[in-house]
């Protein structure tokens, strides 16, 4: 039955042992996707702080896009409206930008979010010790485990960040509409809006991956005996 695995060999020959164990990418994605789906509520909570932080980033950036759309008309009354709304515009400025205070707060919120993700993912790893250990007993390599965690975080990050980016952008447009009327929405340069959305989504994905890197490393290095010993 096991002929293929028992080439004729002298005792002590390691030829009977081979090296290939594989986990194709498609299968990894399927496992990671199912893992998120089954633990949907938990994944949602982990992702929620990311959604909020990214939507804040997106809100700030899209608000700037709105202001730039209005400035580009060159109409002095719109410029006045912008200054009244709190934009720091010197007379020679052709473009608006987010204030350094805003950027500082955005950075801080992203940082808090990253710490939250690390915490949530570390807990997730401890909850899954037995699962990880079992996979290793079935022949998983460290990097299969690592890849599964990164894929999960990547998918969660993509969906969460995209949702946050869209939410933040909508909110910024709504805000522009209330402050400056319909033209605020009409005049937003489409390419800049798109760029802001992409940038916020990418930042969110990156954050999610950075947040899971250490927990995934801990999980991947887990020895099966240690994993199995944990009482669950």
């Amino acid at each position, binding site marked *: 039955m096991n002929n293929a695995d028992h080439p004729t060999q002298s005792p002590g020959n*390691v030829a009977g042992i081979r*090296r290939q164990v594989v986990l194709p990418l498609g299968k990894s994605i399927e496992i990671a996707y199912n893992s998120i789906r089954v633990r949907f509520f938990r994944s949602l909570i982990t992702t929620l702080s990311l959604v909020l932080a990214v939507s804040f980033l997106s809100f700030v950036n899209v608000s700037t896009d709105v202001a730039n759309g209005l400035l580009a008309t060159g109409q002095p009354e719109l410029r006045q409206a912008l200054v009244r709304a709190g934009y720091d515009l010197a007379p020679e400025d052709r473009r608006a930008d987010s204030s350094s205070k805003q950027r500082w707060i955005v950075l801080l919120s992203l940082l808090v979010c990253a710490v939250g993700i690390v915490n949530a993912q570390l807990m997730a790893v401890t909850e899954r010790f*037995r*699962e990880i250990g079992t996979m290793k007993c079935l022949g998983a390599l460290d990097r299969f485990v690592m890849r599964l965690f990164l894929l999960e975080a990547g998918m969660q990050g993509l969906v969460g960040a995209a949702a946050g980016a869209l939410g933040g952008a909508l909110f910024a447009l709504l805000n522009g509409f209330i402050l400056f009327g319909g033209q605020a929405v009409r005049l937003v340069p489409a390419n800049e809006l798109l760029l802001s959305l992409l940038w916020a989504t990418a930042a969110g994905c990156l954050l999610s991956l950075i947040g899971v890197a250490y927990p995934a490393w801990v999980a991947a290095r887990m020895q099966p005996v240690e994993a199995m010993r944990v009482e669950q």
Partner: protein
Amino acid sequence: MTTNKNIVRVTNVTKTFQLGKIAVHALKGVELEIPTGQYVSIMGPSGSGKSTLFNMIGGLDKPTTGKVYIDEVDVSQLDAYELAWLRCRKIGYIFQTFNIIQVMTALENVTLPMTFAGMRNDEAIEKAMGLLDLVGLGDRFQHKPFELSGGQQQRVAIARALANDPAIILADEPTGNLDLKTGEEIINLLQNLSHERDVTVISATHDIKMLNVSDLVVWIRDGRIDKIESRDELTISVGRIDARNA
């Protein structure tokens, strides 16, 4: 079939756990040879070192001193890839706590080791269905572990252990979390499989029910092998146990 008479050889293995300042000597020099194709029970009271020996033989932990050979290959010489391959292809593990992956269905649990082994998906599914049939769970393949009883989960674990036609099935207290009747069914299933498929079954246990089906019984006590008995010698000591228990 296999070219080696002894599928497992354990030479002078000791294992010491360091708990702060205290050293726990879980194994104190174990010598053991396990012939291919037999049903071997490692018997001993709780804390005698059965699980520790199980982990050594399964390549899940390294001995403090001494060597473990699987099919005449020194396990301590293997790198991470070879060790993963060994766990994937040569050994099937069965645990007291079943260790079915909770987020996967019975079918997915059984196909996973085949995926690791590089088998095509449709092939793996077909083989897994066959194995689930074999353990009597053909109609439960879509069930998640929490929808299955303990005995059924252990059957899934047995099907999963057989996935890559391993040479050895290692079972650590496979009946420890099961009631008497279910435990008996699992023992009989393991014995049939070992005979029909010519797999070496090594089972750590303190379940006396195991004695009836074992070809070889290794009695372990306090980290040392007390005695090794083959089936014919057994009847005598079983009689003695029965007499003691009466």
